């Protein structure tokens, strides 16, 4: 059994399984996805109802025609614009707030209860009230996304500041470094890994919240398009937009992970808090 081998001979078996080359990873990826597509194709043929389960070919075709008609571009643009605004807003407020809360006990005691009261109420639960206050349109999804991204960013920034090794600060003090310089050169870099984790989790939460908000209360966007084509019973287009939602979600995560390793190559994060 492979577990036996792995544990028994960890150093000597050249991690034959652990470090496959990029090419073989690609081949395995293609093989797995190919088998999945075949099963899907067979299933679609067996069911024989393109409204319930269209074949993968039909989905790819409708994806191309949606791209050609510009529908993908316009819906993706409005979703991405909302994401950019909601996410940037959450980061611009969340990071400084988290830093300040980490450094000031008074501010922490003041703000933390409010955060702990609001945090369990998911962004999605705000949608009905939000529709009353903001109406169906641009503002609601943006606000829901802001709300979704805000908490992971604040909390992880706070954890970052809190987890700065006290000895690092002492070491800087002993070297005669001043307070503002310590904040800039010790506290901020030391909490940067957690801040980036917060940003990544925040982006993920915002993206999920966006789909829900657009599905219910927006006249455009990827979430809206999914629902629109379901009502028209055009399932291939529904699946095409579902695919796009997954693709964009994946790309954001990849981008932010790349940013994480590029900016904080020394970091080894073991704790992530949502």
């Amino acid at each position, binding site marked *: 059994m492979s577990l036996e081998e792995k544990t*028994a*001979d960890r*150093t*000597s078996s*050249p*991690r*034959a399984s*652990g*470090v496959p080359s990029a090419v073989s990873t690609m081949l395995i990826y293609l093989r797995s996805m190919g088998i999945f597509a075949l099963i899907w194709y067979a299933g679609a043929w067996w069911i024989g109802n393109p409204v319930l389960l269209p074949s993968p070919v039909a989905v790819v075709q409708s994806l191309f025609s949606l791209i050609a008609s510009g529908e993908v571009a316009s819906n993706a643009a409005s979703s991405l614009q909302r994401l950019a605004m909601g996410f940037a807003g959450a980061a611009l407020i969340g990071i400084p707030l988290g830093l300040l809360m980490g450094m000031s006990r008074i501010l922490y005691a003041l703000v933390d209860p409010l955060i702990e009261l609001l945090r369990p109420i998911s962004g999605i639960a705000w949608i009905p009230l939000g529709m009353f206050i903001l109406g169906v349109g641009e503002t609601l999804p943006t606000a829901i996304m802001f709300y979704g991204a805000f908490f992971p960013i604040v909390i992880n920034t706070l954890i970052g500041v809190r987890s700065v090794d006290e000895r690092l600060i002492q070491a800087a003090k002993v070297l005669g470094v001043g307070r503002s310089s310590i904040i800039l050169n010790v506290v901020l870099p030391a909490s940067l890994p957690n801040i980036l984790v917060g940003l990544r989790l925040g982006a993920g939460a915002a993206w999920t919240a966006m789909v829900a908000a657009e599905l219910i209360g927006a006249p455009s966007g990827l979430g809206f398009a999914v629902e629109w084509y379901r009502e028209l019973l055009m399932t291939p287009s529904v699946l095409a937009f579902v695919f796009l939602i997954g693709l964009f979600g994946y790309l954001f995560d990849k981008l932010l992970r790349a940013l994480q390793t590029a900016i904080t190559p020394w970091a080894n994060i073991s704790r992530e808090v949502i």
Partner: protein
Amino acid sequence: METVAIPTKAKISLIAITKQYITPRTGQTTLAVSDVSLNIQQGEFLCIVGPSGCGKSTILSMIAGLTKPSSGTISMDGNAIHGPGRERGVVFQDYALFPWKTVRENIEFGPRFRDRAPLSTAARRELVDHYIELVSLNGSEDKYPHELSGGMRQRCAFARALANEPDVLLMDEPFAALDAQTRLILQEELLRIWGEELPRDKRKTVVFITHGIDEAVFLADRVAVMSNHPGQIKMEKPIGLPRPRNEGVRLTTDFQKLVDEIWQLIRHDAYEATIGKAGIKQA
């Protein structure tokens, strides 16, 4: 070193053992152990010393059956070793105690879950009580490993290996992570539990890996000295110091002489392992 004819009574015998590793990223092969032959007698306390990275832990792991040699054979009581088994107990360097089991549950792990001849609850209880008593862990039976001191963890790991009643005890730098005082105390404890005053055929056979020369000389009947690049046995040194041994032995000139003799033998390798080739010339 030359292959020695195996006396039939050898408890464990290694014949022309070689072990090479392949580094996954570069694909390079490293020769960790090269042509090692060694016989260990029933009831013998054998220490293997050598600089870091000389392959001494690899040898222990191969005797335990956790690693397969690239070539050569290892046998116990004349039977080739193919995998781990309860007749060869291991005390790991980092203790490898199960964090989710209490001291008692760790010690009864082997007798309870082993494939061959597991013990009934009552028999297990008696056995485990005995070993808890033996390593003086009474009062800490229901603690979890993280609640124990380093020395207590070590004793727990030792008791876990003993409670499975193996013929051979394999110990991989068991005292390396302890502070100096605790180490000295546990060395004497180890000899007591091993049963220094028992006749040879009643004692357990012990293979003990260490990089502490004085530790090896204090404990062993025989010391096998290893060298680096590739890992080979440079010398086997019988230790004739009288048993039972106690602190006083360390002060004798015989003891000092043996330590110095072994140190001179591995000095060069130890320097190389520590400060690299450039450092040797200066040393």
